[in-house]
């Protein structure tokens, strides 16, 4: 089973650390990821640039509208995503519990099972085939 882990970061938490602490967190994180990868648990990881770089698009009156950032006042911001391969939900929880960034209290992590859309895609393909056959 694949699980997506959304890692949230409390703004300023990492920046508030001393240089030594920051190095320690980073070293431990990267080493931990190597370990996860070597054991086939880390399918993919996507670190994100800080929320200040974000741009949100809206569909408004048939046109694209844009605003800066995600939500201005949220406490924690999405910092990165990992896709884990785990035996089941409790195994995924166990893997996430060991993430160094998490243990250093950088922020909470949300786990969600990856959805299987194969059935929906198959049905959609059938609908589309029918439509073109007409």
């Amino acid at each position, binding site marked *: 089973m694949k699980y997506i882990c959304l890692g949230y970061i409390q703004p300023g938490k990492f920046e508030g650390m001393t240089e030594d602490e920051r190095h320690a967190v980073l070293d*431990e994180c990267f*080493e931990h990821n190597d370990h996860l990868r070597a*054991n*086939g648990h880390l399918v993919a990881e996507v670190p994100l640039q800080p929320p200040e770089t974000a741009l949100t698009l809206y569909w408004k009156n048939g046109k694209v509208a844009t605003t800066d950032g995600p939500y201005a006042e949220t406490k924690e911001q999405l910092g990165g995503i990992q896709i884990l391969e785990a035996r089941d939900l*409790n*195994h995924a929880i166990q893997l996430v519990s*060991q993430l160094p960034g998490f243990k250093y209290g950088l922020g909470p992590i949300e786990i969600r*099972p990856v959805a299987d859309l194969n059935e929906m895609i198959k049905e959609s393909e059938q609908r589309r085939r029918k439509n073109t056959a007409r």
Partner: protein
Amino acid sequence: MSEHSTAEIRELLDSLYRVDSGRILATLIRLLGDFDLAEEAMQEAFAAALSLWPRNGVPDNPRPWLISTARFKAIDTLRRRARFDASQDELARYLETQWNSAEESNEEASVEDDRLRLIFTCCHPSLPPEAYVALTLREVCGLTTEEIAKAFLITPRTLAQRIVRAKAKIRDTPIRYEVPSPQELPERLDAVLQVIYLVFNEGYSAAAGAGVTRAELTGEAIRLGRLLTELLPEPEVIGLLSLMLLQESRHAARTSPTGELILLENQDRSLWNREQIAEGVALVERALKSHRFGSYTLQAAIAAVHAEAESTAMTDWRQIVALYNQLVRIQPSPIVELNRAVAIAMRDGPEVGLALIDAVFAHGELANYYLAHSARADMCRRLGRTAEARSSYEKALALTQQEPERQFLQERIRQLK
């Protein structure tokens, strides 16, 4: 060592996991002294096997290979953590020296005990009872959180949190990893047997239409019963296994192709599984010979009398009543009283049965139990008291949610008109 493709290895590992993960985990928990570390190490050992075995061949003894690989993985994990947390290094060193000295004394007997330790830990009285089933099915039987959740019709995240909390409790209490002392054993064993029978009934009562997964629970419960019979052949353990096998032997006969429930008296007995009956009967005889049996053995003995009868009419109701008389003595409950009343009705006629059922109702405990109303309705029907019969069937119908049962009761009401 022999050559295999990755796909073959994956299949082999899947079946190894289903059969042996409980055993491997049980030993690792003892060796490592930590549930989570043991589980993580086991997962890593299986992952290592998947990448190494296609290249290097499958070891002649996969289980010891997996256990020793998991040990090294655990040491690695602790070493890695030690680079950032010095206390882990001490632990890693301690485990290594301990293993070197324990290597020789690690005989098969203590490995078998590990599985008992694991079962008793999963059903430990310090844990909340709702965690027993989840932990037992996941840690002992190797089912995934998602599979268990699906079978018990709850969300995976509810079940996952239950498991997380239970494991934290095991670690923080801490719950010792051991088989209970002889003094504690009867009570502790009773909790384990209850868990196994609950798993069985969850699958058994699901009947048709509720999906395959729930039906698999009966198979899982029987597997647990066999394991426990092998590890700890106490009379009641054997009695429970016998009871489950004898109930399961009627599986094919108890629902119609359209999913309606078929009562024992109307079942096509040629559909009963003779192999399971033979095994169940042999087991219950073994348990009865001990003269230290309890309620599971008596229930199995009752099921065995039914299993050996050619029809309802040919059933030895005198013996069944005698067994219920014993059961009422050691485990008095309104439900046992009700079943005894039904058996007496079969022996002495519905009038006697109805009087007994009404006496049970008079205690007031069975007012919300649909089977009690259904049994009463049945007595009235056989006595020709149609209006009373209908009213009792209707009460029963109002009290059950299960579709096969509802269909059965509706059919009975229709027949009365």
